């Protein structure tokens, strides 16, 4: 049996983009069992922008599972944004897991926003000024929560497990971004969590100039689904559920 996962990130909705994605989203039942939103759903994380997102996804015939991105934190009201999205039926994950029943089997989604720090050999260390240590600890906490969520799904008899983040777990999918800013685009700690806990697919956004395809050191496929990268309303990945 096949599980069909649709995903997009970085849709950056505002009042002027209302209704742009809804026509494509309404076709989802034809091609997908679940829609994943990989963060940066808004531009500034305001309740007004969150309500625009809600109108794009409310009452869709497929479940919608999301993580927030850095833009969704900008107004410093992520809890309010989360509550507004949940009221519209969106499952918003932050260090949590969700199981969706699909025709092809149960798909488990573990989600967290993630954070930066960089990649092996070129990464920030938990050292020095308090703000620097807190930067790295923020990523570590996020990665730990992703690991725990994936391990929880391992007990849930899922046909497939997907790791959903906003920041990237690998540098592969950042190709096209200036290498100097890679530490602000993701962290290997997320990939290490994915590889040690196990997953069938990792989906992220954040890197608008990156590339779609990548893989963790442990061999898990990674897909950057930032809308500017995939150049569509969403992409669909078909996973073998056996």
């Amino acid at each position, binding site marked *: 049996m096949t599980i*069909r996962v649709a995903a997009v990130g970085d849709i950056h909705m505002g009042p002027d983009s209302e209704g742009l994605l809804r026509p494509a989203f309404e076709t989802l039942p034809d091609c997908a069992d679940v829609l994943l939103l990989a963060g940066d759903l808004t531009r500034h994380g305001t309740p007004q922008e969150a309500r625009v997102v809600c109108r794009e996804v409310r009452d869709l015939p497929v479940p919608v599972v999301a993580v927030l991105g850095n*833009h969704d934190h900008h107004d410093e009201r992520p809890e309010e944004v989360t509550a507004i999205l949940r009221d519209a039926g969106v499952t918003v994950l932050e260090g949590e897991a969700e199981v969706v029943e699909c025709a092809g089997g149960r798909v488990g989604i573990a989600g967290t926003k993630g954070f930066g720090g960089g990649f092996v050999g070129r990464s920030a260390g938990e050292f020095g000024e308090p703000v620097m240590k807190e930067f790295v600890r923020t990523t570590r906490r996020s990665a730990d929560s992703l690991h725990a969520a994936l391990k929880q799904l391992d007990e849930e008899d899922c046909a497939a497990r997907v790791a959903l983040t906003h920041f990237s777990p690998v540098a592969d999918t950042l190709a096209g971004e200036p290498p100097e800013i890679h530490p602000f685009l993701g962290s290997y700690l997320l990939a290490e969590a994915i590889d040690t806990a196990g997953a069938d697919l990792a989906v992220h956004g954040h890197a608008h100039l990156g590339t779609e395809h990548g893989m963790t050191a442990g061999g898990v496929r990674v897909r950057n689904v930032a809308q500017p990268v995939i150049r569509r309303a*969403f992409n669909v990945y078909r996973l073998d559920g056996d």
Partner: protein
Amino acid sequence: MSDPGVQNVEYRVAHLQDRLAAEELGELGVRAEVRAGAVALTGTVPSAQCRETVLRLAREELAGLTVHADVVVAQTTRPDHAEEL
């Protein structure tokens, strides 16, 4: 202008990028780079209105400079095929 720092193209591009990130657009990954004496803007934004805002801010910050705007609006069509994994 008397302040040579204000006239330096590199700092003017940096100030444009600061405004693109901090003002109504939010940081949308639009790049501005000096090429052959002109400033090239590249990136993908979520709406036509956002694109107009990028161009307006560029005109304000880079007045007197040639600006090449290759900023495009994100596409919103559904995919015509799935990827088999």
